[in-house]
């Protein structure tokens, strides 16, 4: 799927590597997780209520549309989370493993 966001400047930053649905994504240091994901992909998640894909809305931590799951079942608000190396993100909730206690 085509990316949603396009970089206009500040492209000389260090590369940070993450994974989205098993695919490698190269982001830049200083990116928010949302910008990192949407510079490579068209959406962040699916609406829980069947009305399609979602890619955030407000970018300022107000709408809560951009929460993503990590492979370990953690929740991250992608527009206010800075990227870090090795993040492993999913656009669908992972299978719940209840015995896998925190």
């Amino acid at each position, binding site marked *: 799927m085509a990316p949603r966001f396009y970089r206009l400047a500040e492209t000389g930053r260090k590369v940070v590597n993450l994974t989205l649905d098993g695919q490698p994504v190269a982001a830049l240091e200083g990116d928010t997780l949302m910008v990192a994901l949407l510079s490579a992909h068209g959406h962040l998640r699916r609406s829980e209520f069947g009305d399609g894909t979602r890619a955030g809305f407000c970018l300022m931590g107000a709408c809560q549309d951009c929460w993503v799951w990590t492979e370990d079942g953690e929740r991250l608000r992608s527009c206010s989370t800075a990227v870090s190396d090795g993040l492993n993100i999913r656009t669908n909730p992972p299978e719940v493993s209840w015995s896998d206690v*925190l």
Partner: protein
Amino acid sequence: MSQSVNNQSDVIIIGGGLMGASAAFFLRQRNRSVTLLETGLIGQQASGVNFGNVRRQGRPLFQLPLAGRASPIWRNMNALLGEDVEYIQSGHMRVCYRERAELADSFETYAREARQYGLDLEILSGNALRQKFPFLGPDVYAGSYSATDGHANPRLAAPAFGRAAARLGANICENTEVVRAEKDGVDFRVTAKGGRVFKAPVLLVTAGAWGNALSEQFGEPVPLTPRGPNMSVTEPVPYTLMPTVGVSTPLEIETVYFRQIPRGNIIIGGSTRAASYPDIRRAYVKPENTLTQLREIRRLVPALGRLNIIRTWSGIEGYMPDSLPAMGPSGTTSGLYYAFGFSGSGFQVGPAVGDVMAELIDEGATTTPIEMYDIRRLKPVAV
């Protein structure tokens, strides 16, 4: 809702929570003309904001006939009212912690005795418990599972009864606060704020935590303490937690319970209840109680620690010293009936309370035992 010009009816009901709205419905089914007076909107107080637990287990044994009468009504409610109240027979699980292992014995005893009232409970511990409920934390020792209990949407149930009663011809007056009620010869004369007067030979008070303000006017003051339990709800997540689960413990701060709805949100209740304010019709959540509640829910289901809550709320409950309601005929005034003060567990019994009160008013007696709720047992506290 419809406003009749005629202010005379067979029965006046004061208070449009689940008790009053269902009583209005069942009285109409029995062809009694009914006027229901409600300060605000139908089902806006405790009945509309509660946790939504429709559980029989854990109630005193003597309450099981009443609770049992409610079960089939819940199961058939959508057909009865012509609206979906989101009732689900999800099962209900009551658990205890390792440090209170003795409670497991009381679960066994309760299960044995409850069977006589038609309530089947399965006691689980060890591997059986872990297999069936893998999400429970390591502190959980044993549990009592009731397959036929469940939960429903409190925001919908009482209003649905109100609308169904109105369709059957009940005169439902919202935004009508009763300020005075008295017996004037044969009839009760009930005066609302603004001066409107209603008359009927029978008066039913279903005024929840506000009941004392009315019973007092008939010489029957009761010691009602208003409190507010803490509720929280999570963001929606895949629907995997079928049964409602609650912790049994003598420590209020430790109590915690949850249910998940098919849309995915998990509703959490429990920990220390705060004061609530009937006079201004508000109950506020104290943040410190949310924090202890979240700590306790992590103990019950550690994996919930990964989620977020998105909203908290509370509601106004009225507690009698023995946590039982005032339900039945008045001790001072003929034609006067009470069904209020249901504390923290009135939602499940609600529709049966309406049914029983309608029966009592219509037939002069009820087949369901209610003597233990007689208002005469209550002595007001000296202040």
